[in-house]
């Protein structure tokens, strides 16, 4: 593949993925309001379009048209930088996520991943450290929250952002450690390699068990640590202390209005997508799923993407479902849970997994 085709393919992929991602984010808000509505025995949005389907569009127009207030005495530069940082950092992590193997359009084969490339020999190369990039980008994303509260020059914002960044720093540790078990089993940090190592079935004692070779089965403890820590990282119920709209004055985004507020909102939902994508890639075999032989060739080519999208949808739905079900932690419970329960459990999981991996050679 020459440089020109590579750049054109990359630009098309970036535009497509960002478009799908932001549309997905918009309709996740619709889905959330609908599902929460049904859980609470009401209808959710119904007025704008059939089933309220145009509601995200109306919300978007509203956000853009609202007055963009810039309070006096804020630290202007950082106040404007913070929401941008939050949104950009959440979008960057999408770049390393593989949505499927490869796709061939008009004689050009390309990897279904923004950062994936096809080498001259036809092999797919991926960034070796995909998983670390996501962790790094997440850790930079904390600045968005921290700076937003500080630069607002308001005590409620500052307290909110201290609460939020303390929570994110605490749970980042368990999040990172919960993934070590996966790395031990797959032996790679590349997301593509991790998915490849999950193909086929588990073979126990020479017998084919017909259970897919997904890492959820040996790493069920790791999966639960990951899920809980990721919920805390994305500030969602039951860990949505940074926002806590029913009992506190919002949080770090108290002083934000219009599109700047919307950017924090979008960042939160894009992060939810990243968490859902990672959970499907690391624990549920990514794009692996049953082959459906009766589909036409194009359907066959897009089937892995469909399996992947279904898994991601399941995790997004789980987010909403949990929001409709669970109450919120108290702050001291949240900190104690993170440091005294999740972290030791994650370390124990790593030790046991590495012993088993070493024992099996």
């Amino acid at each position, binding site marked *: 593949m020459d440089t020109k085709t590579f750049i054109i393919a990359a630009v098309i992929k970036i535009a497509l993925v960002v478009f799908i991602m932001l549309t997905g984010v918009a309709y996740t808000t619709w889905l959330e309001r609908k599902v929460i509505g049904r859980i609470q025995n009401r209808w959710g949005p119904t007025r704008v379009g059939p089933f309220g389907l145009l509601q995200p569009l109306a919300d978007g127009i509203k956000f853009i048209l609202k007055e963009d207030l810039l309070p006096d005495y804020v*630290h202007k530069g*950082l106040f404007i930088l913070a929401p941008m940082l939050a949104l950009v950092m959440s979008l960057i992590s999408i770049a390393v996520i593989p949505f499927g193997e490869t796709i061939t359009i008009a004689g050009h084969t390309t990897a279904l991943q923004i950062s994936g490339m096809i080498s001259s020999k036809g092999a797919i190369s991926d*960034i*070796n*450290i995909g998983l*670390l*990039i996501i*962790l*790094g980008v*997440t*850790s*930079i994303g*904390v*600045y968005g929250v*921290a*700076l937003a*509260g*500080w630069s607002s020059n308001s005590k409620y914002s*500052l307290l909110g*952002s*201290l609460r939020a*960044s*303390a929570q994110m*720093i605490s749970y*980042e540790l368990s999040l990172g450690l919960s993934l070590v078990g996966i790395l031990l089993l797959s032996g790679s*940090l590349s997301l593509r390699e991790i998915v490849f190592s999950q193909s086929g079935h588990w073979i126990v004692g020479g017998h084919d068990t017909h259970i897919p070779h997904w890492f959820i089965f040996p790493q069920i403890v790791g999966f639960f640590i990951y899920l809980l820590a990721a919920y805390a990282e994305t500030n969602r119920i039951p860990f949505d202390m940074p926002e806590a709209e029913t009992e506190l004055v919002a949080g770090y985004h108290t002083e934000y209005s219009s599109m700047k507020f919307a950017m924090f909102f979008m960042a939160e939902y894009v992060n939810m997508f990243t968490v859902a994508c990672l959970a499907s890639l690391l624990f549920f075999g990514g794009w692996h799923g049953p082959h459906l032989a009766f589909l036409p060739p194009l359907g066959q080519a897009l089937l892995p993407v469909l399996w992947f999208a279904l898994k991601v949808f399941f995790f997004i739905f789980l987010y909403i479902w949990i929001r409709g079900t669970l109450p919120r932690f108290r702050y001291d419970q949240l900190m104690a849970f993170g440091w005294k329960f999740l972290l030791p459990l994650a370390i124990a999981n790593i030790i046991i997994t590495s012993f088993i991996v070493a024992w099996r050679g």
Partner: protein
Amino acid sequence: MIIHQVLFIVFGFICVAGAVNLLVQRHPINSALSLVVVMASLALIYLLLGAEFVAAIQVIVYAGAIMVLFVFVIMLLNAGAEERTRGSSVALFVGVPGMIVLAGTVGWLLVHSGGQLGGVTISSSSFGETHQIARLLFKDFLLPFEITSVLILIAIMGAVVLGKREN
């Protein structure tokens, strides 16, 4: 190769500019954020050298974890802008000549014996990969690595003891 050089100059410039800005800024938060920029551009220079793992760790540990704690503490103490002093005579009479001598020595060495310093040839394609770094850390340099870990553990315990003393 030309792209590498252009990128190196760009990131090197950002790195130095961030470092200078760190000293010039009067507010601690701005200084801390300049340090984040320095760390991040260093990570990109590591990436240009082919050391992917080190670059990622640089971002996660330094730009992410450590600097977030810096910013967090500055926010918690609500540190205000610092006042500029008139400069000390020690800096003027010792620091400035010292800096000139150091810069002169390094520059002279680079100009006169730059050819003899030798470069690093990256032989294998697996250079900088996670596997290789793990092998170095846990096999060749296991003892220094473990001793460093114990040192850090002692520092953590010391911090806990100091923190608990008030009760």
